[in-house]
């Protein structure tokens, strides 16, 4: 035991006498370990972010989109193509409790861009025209006031609910309830319609990659007919009472819509019914691919770190071989040489590993902190696997490239090691 302490002390002295080389070796290990931790943490954080965005919407939700979508591609609406196959009649059929059970709430949607004016303040934003069932379907609460009622939504009353950011910008002093704002569409028929503010939606941040606070809500008919001047529905969202009933509900909705549209075979569907679990599955596939990609990058950072270590070790092999020759000439046994180099490798990789873990965690934390500051719901995840992997590979490179040439040199005759070029 005393011998080991003595050994470690002499190794430390030895390492300090070659600060530059020791520093570069440690740096290689730090880069390798920290790189793996940061990259894997980024992957996990991004995955949590993406999935969190989706699950915020609630997992009991079904979406009905116009147009057929096959498994391999997104629906046409994603590309801005307006498919007009969803009608108000479809909505009414879905709402009919006699035809489909297990449904808690249904909301139709159309969206568009709009200019909202309140006094001198004016802001360009998006409107979402929907029913009063919206808060129930989307699981959202009000910051102030109320969402417009089922009745108001259906009848087309001129009432409006502001997103949190819009409310802040139009009414910095917070006196929005009961005030009149004017909506002016950016389309051809530029009518200016007055609305009475009845509520402000709670702050939601970014969900599904949209800032949920930068929009206003108006009754469905007003948005659809008066502002957009269309008679179809862009999409319908349905909340099912229990996640176990989602698949039954999807099948029921599909059958009813086929009836409505006189479609005989599923191949000819002009609509698609998706649930959030599917979306999560697809997104998980994507984020898994992302993590795999990041994992490869982590691998590259390990290789870079490893090559750094390797280079330093190889560059110094001849110098070290001569040092080993000298030590042997002065009476070191092969075992003493091996112990010295083993301790040296352990000390270097140990310091490098610890600094690497700490700096990796700090950088990952700063990234998470920055992402949260920027409004993303980023979680700070450190995977123990990444720490283990980083340490394992770096230590292995350190030991293989540090110890292996040393062991080879320790077997040479002292004079051959001393004369090594």
């Amino acid at each position, binding site marked *: 035991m005393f011998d080991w302490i003595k050994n470690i002390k002499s190794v430390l002295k030895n390492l300090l006498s070659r600060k530059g080389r020791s520093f570069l070796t440690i740096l290689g290990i730090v880069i390798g370990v920290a790189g793996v931790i940061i990259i894997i943490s980024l992957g996990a954080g991004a995955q949590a972010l993406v999935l969190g965005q989706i699950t915020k919407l609630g997992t009991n939700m079904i979406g009905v989109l116009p147009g057929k979508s096959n498994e391999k591609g997104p629906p046409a609406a994603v590309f801005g193509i307006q498919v007009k196959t969803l009608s108000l009649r479809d909505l009414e059929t879905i709402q009919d409790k006699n035809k489909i059970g297990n449904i808690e709430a249904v909301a139709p949607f159309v969206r568009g861009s709009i200019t909202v004016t309140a006094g001198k303040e004016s802001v360009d934003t998006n409107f979402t025209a929907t029913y009063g069932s919206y808060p129930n379907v989307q699981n959202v609460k009000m910051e102030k006031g109320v969402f417009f009622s089922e009745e108001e939504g259906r009848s087309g009353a001129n009432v409006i609910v502001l997103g949190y950011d819009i409310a802040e910008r139009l009414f910095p002093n917070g006196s929005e309830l009961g005030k009149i704002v004017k909506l002016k569409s950016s389309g051809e028929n530029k009518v200016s319609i007055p609305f009475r503010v009845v509520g402000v939606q709670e702050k939601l941040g970014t969900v599904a990659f949209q800032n949920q606070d930068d929009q206003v809500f108006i009754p469905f008919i007003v948005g659809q007919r008066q502002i957009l001047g269309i008679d179809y529905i862009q999409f319908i969202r349905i909340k099912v009472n229990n996640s176990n009933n989602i698949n039954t509900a999807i099948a029921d909705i599909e059958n009813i819509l086929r009836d409505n549209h006189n479609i005989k075979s599923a191949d000819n569907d002009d609509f698609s019914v998706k649930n959030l679990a599917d979306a999560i599955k697809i997104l998980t596939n994507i984020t898994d691919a992302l993590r795999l990609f990041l994992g490869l990058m982590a691998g590259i950072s390990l290789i870079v770190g490893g090559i750094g270590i390797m280079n330093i070790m190889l560059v110094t092999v001849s110098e070290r071989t001569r040092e080993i020759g000298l030590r042997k000439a002065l*009476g070191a046994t092969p075992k003493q040489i091996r112990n010295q180099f083993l301790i040296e490798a352990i000390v270097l990789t140990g310091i490098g590993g610890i600094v690497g873990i700490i700096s990796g965690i700090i950088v990952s934390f700063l990234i998470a902190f920055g992402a949260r500051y920027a409004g993303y719901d980023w979680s700070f995840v450190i995977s123990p696997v990444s720490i283990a992997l980083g340490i394992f590979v770096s230590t292995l490179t350190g030991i293989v490239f540090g110890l292996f040439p040393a062991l080879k040199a320790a077997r040479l005759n*002292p004079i051959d090691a*001393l004369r090594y070029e």
Partner: protein
Amino acid sequence: MLIRLKNITKEYINSGVITRVLRGISLEVKEGEFLAIMGPSGSGKSTLMHIIGFLDRPTSGEYFFSEDNTTNFNDDELAHIRNEKIGFVFQSFNLLPRTTVLDNVILPLTYSKKKDHVELATKALESVGLGNRLNFLSNQISGGQKQRVAIARALVCNPKVIFADEPTGNLDSKSGATVMNILERLNNEGRTIILVTHDRNVAEHAKRVITIKDGEIVSDEHVTHRRKAEIVEEEV
């Protein structure tokens, strides 16, 4: 008899060609001798020195050290002999760079069972006149001082023999004289010194000179008119 070589040969095989460096060397060295091995470069004198000093192994022949047959000693046994029984002084000093003079001299002690490393090393350095340089880095001192550090390092484990391979080869004449003076003093104190040189002037400091040519001993003579190294003033 301290050293007895019986028919030692050394061959190198280089891309199929056998080079015979030593062709059957037999030699005896008594305790307390001051022996110089001379010869032109390529004669095999350094190889012989490395074999006697356990830095290299012979291809064939037997080597008795203190009447022990070392021919079949393993690496650990050889390491112990190198550590305890012999000390080596190289032409190019071979000090650890960026390391203090004291730590360089302590180095062989770390491989021995001896205690009180700092005391022993300090004493060895004082005996070569470097008691005031203990904490200098090995690359901050002059060549002559480096070689004296190397002698202190060779001495520190109190060996029976000191081997010196062209110890003055890299030194100016003044530093060289100081080094030779120290070696003479060590011999006078009873230590065996074996010196390799190609320079007759250096060799004549010894009591006995053997000459090697083409891997064989061609002469073995006592020095009748020994040179004495002048004591040179302390270099600064």
